[in-house]
């Protein structure tokens, strides 16, 4: 029971006022756990259950239901490649197979050094920029297999993923925007 500091717990209490019910903050709490730990283990589920005033079994059910919550450790960079129709029509499957071979792991697998994990995903809402892949929150759109290789190599080398070629730049974020 030590994932969150008292300040963070206070933040959740404030957030719960916006929803009226503590249970409604379960998704934000789980997101915060995953940001801190990389995945959601049994102890974390217990802590989330206490914060949101729901049974632990409820938390387990919610974690299992949503595809973006991890119930096992994943790579520091979670690589997602879409193979749904719009991407498939423009080479999404070819891109996925290329990335899979480059990383040497299968769907939902993790590289031995823990840097990458891989997921073949359903639509990510980048149909106009197909084919696409994502490293954590960063979308790489209109990406060729050659570019994908470069992104993976650069990420492995530098420990940070390169900026995508086509993406809108975020304005300076205020503290409130990150909540």
């Amino acid at each position, binding site marked *: 029971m030590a994932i969150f500091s008292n300040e963070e717990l206070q933040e959740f209490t404030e957030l719960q006022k*916006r*929803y*009226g*019910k503590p*249970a*409604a*903050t*379960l*998704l*934000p709490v*789980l*997101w915060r756990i995953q940001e801190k730990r990389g995945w959601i283990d049994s102890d974390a589920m217990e802590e989330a259950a206490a914060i949101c005033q729901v049974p632990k079994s*409820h938390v387990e*059910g*919610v974690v299992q*239901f*949503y*595809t*973006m*919550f991890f119930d096992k450790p994943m790579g520091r960079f979670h690589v997602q490649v879409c193979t*749904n*129709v*719009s991407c*498939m*029509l*423009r*080479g999404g*499957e*070819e891109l996925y197979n290329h990335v899979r071979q480059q990383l040497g792991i299968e769907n939902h697998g993790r590289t031995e050094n823990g840097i990458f994990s891989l997921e073949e*995903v*359903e*639509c990510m*809402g*980048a*149909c*106009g*920029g*197909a*084919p696409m892949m*994502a490293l954590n*929150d*960063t*979308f790489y*759109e*209109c990406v*060729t297999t050659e*570019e994908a290789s470069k992104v993976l190599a650069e990420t492995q080398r530098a420990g940070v993923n390169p900026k995508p*070629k*086509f*993406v*809108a*730049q*975020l*304005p300076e*974020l*205020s503290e*409130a*925007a*990150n*909540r």
Partner: protein
Amino acid sequence: MADSPKLILPDVPGLRNIETYMQHGGYGETLRKVFTMSPTAVTDEVKKSGLRGRGGAAFPTGLKWSFMPKGNEKKKYLLVNGDESEPGSFKDRQIFEFNPHQMIEGILIASYAMQIDHAYIYIRGEYEHWIKMVRQAVAEAYDRGVVGPRMKDTFKPSGDGIAYSVDITVHKGAGAYIVGEETAMMSSLEGDRGYPRVKPPFPAASGLWHSPTTINNIETLANVPVILKMGGDAYSKIGDPKHPGTLLFGVSGHVNKPGVYELPTGTTLLDIINKHAGGVPGGKKIKMVIPGGSSMPPLRGEQLEGVKMDAENLKAAGSAIGTGGIMVMDEDTDIIKVLTRISKFYAHESCGQCTPCREGTGWLLKILQRFEQGNAREEDIDLLHDVAFNIEGRTICALGEAAAWPVRFTVERFREVFEQRVKPGLKIGSPNRVHALRKGGLEPVQIHVPMVERV
């Protein structure tokens, strides 16, 4: 093309910043005028405009608002649906990126019309980058006092005006297509698994925490400030009279310039594909088009002549407008491979509550995989059709229809493709042709909003 009105995504650089938005009239006279009108008068103006929902069902927005009970015995909520997870749909993302404040202003007007206490913007978790943009926009709006408790001072009414304020919270999803369904979204927001609920009771009677709730799509709400600014009558004259306004058409697949195009409803499908999205690479013929996201009935290439993109005309043509996500497939496309991928998606995304959907989507996928691998029998064609037909109308939510429609209508409209597939020695096409043709590197996604904003 130059004359097409740009109501949702005008060509204004930097519009996502609140200063620029306000310089162009945002959070200004229109909003002040709204707060001097009665809530019923605001709803009536939206009714007059003929605005229909942009999330898929094209339900009249003003009518939906009028279902909300009057009186204040319980808190009232607005749930803003930004979950767009349907393959082929990527339009709301452009609003988050280029014009989030118009959406927020739409939320304020809708909230006032229904006397909402709190609005939640639910955005799919995969859009983290865009969630940050919306959070930034909401934070700016709070700082300026155009949202939240300070609204009462900012828009201090003169004369008979009514003081009003509403709070907005941005909520991040976690990856589940079904959550885009309105009752599933309510379950998800309440901290449960995103299971749809049986209707009735409808959300207006019993929604979030059993309180009256209205669920509107992002694009629907982004239209509202325009309607109140130009007047319902003027808005109703744009595009098709039965489905007025502009739509954000997301064009993907085998076109030279995939992207989002804002065009009046009633624009023909072939104009969107050929004039706006640059036509099909290599001048190839179109084999199939799915006009409104992957759940809509596909149309044959030969069926496209004269088809107009709005709810009524598309229904008459044998499909539906959905989210306006147009997926184009050229003559070399393997229809069965595409359909198998669609069925894989719905089998993956079925929440599992209803047996016809849980079992049926899996069976559709299994039978289609037999066709894909060349192991299908002739009787599998009718079996596929029967399984699809028996899912429809037998589930709590519309995911059943979403899974069944593409299969049933593809079997009905492309039967010869399935018949050929059960014969041996068939040459199978490839859906990856465009990518193969463009080995030299792909162009950036074409969006009519100036690329200068993109790095």
